[in-house]
């Protein structure tokens, strides 16, 4: 059987994508408004700064404890889930995960799957794979439903259709859903979506979902949502397949309390979501509803590479709240599609190199001004700017240099010109006499500075050395004082 191959080579187009996104005024307006709104909402959800900081530290410590014990917790989770009747599957690659899921659906001769929100299934491009094998997978989260109908990918991990205006959605619905008049009334649009999807929950052979936290202690899959589509997908069809990354396991049930609070408040400024859905087994003997089969697919896809390095391991603390993108000046200007990856924004910049290799993502760690906003708001205190610098270093490290935990695509960001520039720079600043000579020459020959400076002058005025070096100025000042 043919296999859908995941072909994501984002970085090669990142700069072009970013440039064209910057020119799209409608998009920029939508994003700016939305991000301002989400930032204000988050702020209002944490009125007590002390409580926020204490909770962040608690969240960070919990995630680090869970990661420190990751292999043991995964085994414990598997044992608990299995004892509860939930079947556990392991996949190293997106292709393996897709094949497992397709196999499970095929076994039941399933043709229709309804899907709750799952970024991991976006990562594996599950829908395409299923489609290619005769299974229709319908996204049921309103935002995902809209994005799928438009033939696009989500532009934000929490708000998939944040880039779309209601006029665009009205047009999309009226053109794609039978007997649907054009309306820009948001309530009406939601009711149209509700009606179209309720029909499908009833008929679907299988429900597919993501997982926000997988609890090893009790063997419980926790799902966070507002819409109820996640509950529909995990309750109504006779089979439920959940897919998640191996890092999502937490040790204790009580661990989810602070993490859940951090997640909803950081993501959308809500004290809590409408639903917190905890699933611990398939339908038991005597129960009247719920799926008879529940499966969990655990996906690695490069996460173990991040895990191997104690600094980069912190990337896996992420609870996917999206706050880092809401606060990112780069994301706010270019939106999620420009990154070309499943996870955009700061979290995408630090996780994608592990999922796709630096050879496909070497531009992403540089898509940041290192302003530090992401690290400041991250509810589990991931030092994102530090991770970005480290990844920049790895993408510049010569491919043949031996290190303890080489990253896939090490050195992929190196270009001849850049390495020469760094070598020259090293020569200049490495020795006092060289630096002095360089300063003298630059200030004396400043009139010869080229007006056209590639990489700089398309957006800035040309750089020109000062008439006197800083050393000279200080010397003169000291002389005056004495």
């Amino acid at each position: 059987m043919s296999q859908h191959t995941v072909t994501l080579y984002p970085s090669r187009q990142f700069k072009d994508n970013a440039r064209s996104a910057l020119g799209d005024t409608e998009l920029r307006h939508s994003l700016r408004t939305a991000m301002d709104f989400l930032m204000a909402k988050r702020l209002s959800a944490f009125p007590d700064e002390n409580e926020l900081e204490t909770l962040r530290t608690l969240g960070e410590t919990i995630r680090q404890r869970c990661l420190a014990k990751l292999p043991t917790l995964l085994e414990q989770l598997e044992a608990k889930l299995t004892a509860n009747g939930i079947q556990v599957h392991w996949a190293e690659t997106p292709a393996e995960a897709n094949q497992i899921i397709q196999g499970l659906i095929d076994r039941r001769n399933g043709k229709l799957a309804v899907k709750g929100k799952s970024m991991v299934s976006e990562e594996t491009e599950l829908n395409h794979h299923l489609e290619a094998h005769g299974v229709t997978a319908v996204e049921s989260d309103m935002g995902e439903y809209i994005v799928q109908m438009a033939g696009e990918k989500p532009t934000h991990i929490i708000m998939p259709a944040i880039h779309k205006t209601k006029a665009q959605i009205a047009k999309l619905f009226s053109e794609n859903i039978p007997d649907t008049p054009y309306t820009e009334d948001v309530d009406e649009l939601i009711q149209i979506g509700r009606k179209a999807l309720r029909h499908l929950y009833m008929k679907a052979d299988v429900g597919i979902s993501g997982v926000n936290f997988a609890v090893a202690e009790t063997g419980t899959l926790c799902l966070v949502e507002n819409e109820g589509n996640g509950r529909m997908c995990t309750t109504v069809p006779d089979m439920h397949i959940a897919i998640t990354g191996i890092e999502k396991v937490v040790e204790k049930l009580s661990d989810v309390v602070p993490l859940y609070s951090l997640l909803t408040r950081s993501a959308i400024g809500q004290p809590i979501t409408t639903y917190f859905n905890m699933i611990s087994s398939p339908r038991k003997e005597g129960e009247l509803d719920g799926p008879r089969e529940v499966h969990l697919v655990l996906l690695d896809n490069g996460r173990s590479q991040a895990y191997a390095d104690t600094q980069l391991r912190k990337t896996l603390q992420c609870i996917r709240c999206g706050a880092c993108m809401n606060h990112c000046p780069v994301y706010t200007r270019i939106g999620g599609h420009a990154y070309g990856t499943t996870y955009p924004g700061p979290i995408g910049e630090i996780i994608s190199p592990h999922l796709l290799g630096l050879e496909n993502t070497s531009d992403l760690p540089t898509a940041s001004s290192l302003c530090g906003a992401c690290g400041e708001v991250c509810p589990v205190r991931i030092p994102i700017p530090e991770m970005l610098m480290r990844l920049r270093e790895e993408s510049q490290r010569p491919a043949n240099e031996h290190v303890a935990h080489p990253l896939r695509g090490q050195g992929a960001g190196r270009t001849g010109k850049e390495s020469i520039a760094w070598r020259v720079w090293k020569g200049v600043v490495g020795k006092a006499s060289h630096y002095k000579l360089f300063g003298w020459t630059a200030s004396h020959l400043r009139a010869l500075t080229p007006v056209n400076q590639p990489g700089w002058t398309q957006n800035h005025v040309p750089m020109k050395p000062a008439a006197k070096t800083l050393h000279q100025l200080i010397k003169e000042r000291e002389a005056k004082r004495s």
Partner: protein
Amino acid sequence: MSARDNILGKLKAAPVTPVIEPDTAAHFARFASTASKLELLKHWAAAMRSVKTEIIWVTESNWADKLAARVTATNLPDLLVSDTPHGTKARAALANSDVTVKVFDRPVDEWKESLFNDVSASLTRCLCGIAQTGTLVLWPDSKEPRTMSLVPPVHFVLFDTQTLYPNFFTAMDAQQWSAGMPTNAVLVSGPSKTADIQLTLAYGAHGPREVIVLACLPEGVNPTLLEDAA
């Protein structure tokens, strides 16, 4: 080697980092509310109402009549109840009305379409409430199945206000959830909603459009006491 062995092998080969044990209980104790039971209940009600939940104050002796009155007042044609004592009580209260009372007494597979198409409201009870976030904890079982609180557009919840906990942690801790979880448990804070279209909040996404809580007060507690600040 299986995928499982490969993944676990890689993780086990990675450097070991120290484990720092956080004190979750201490955190929640430190930031615990010092409010009285009555204040907590007011806070709970205000939080639930802020997400479009209707609250009807009732007592053990009058809740079924108040339910019947609310169902008939809005002309709901039918109500789905469970085969439980409270289901039976609700059924009795509606016996002389035009409302069709349906009982969830057979596997959903036998009547899925009808559950989706022909049921307009349901009644379930809940395990407890959470004051801080304005939340009810549903704990479905073989008598009161999961879809009852999910599929019908209007959901009535019978809530014993004596089971209100200050926050999620205290509820989970006091009731020792970690000792064993049911097939499914759900925290519910209002009717389903979404802000996926231009961040405009709309209720009635996929789950119930309306959540109406029959909040049962101990006999003798005057509901007006709860209303002044709520």
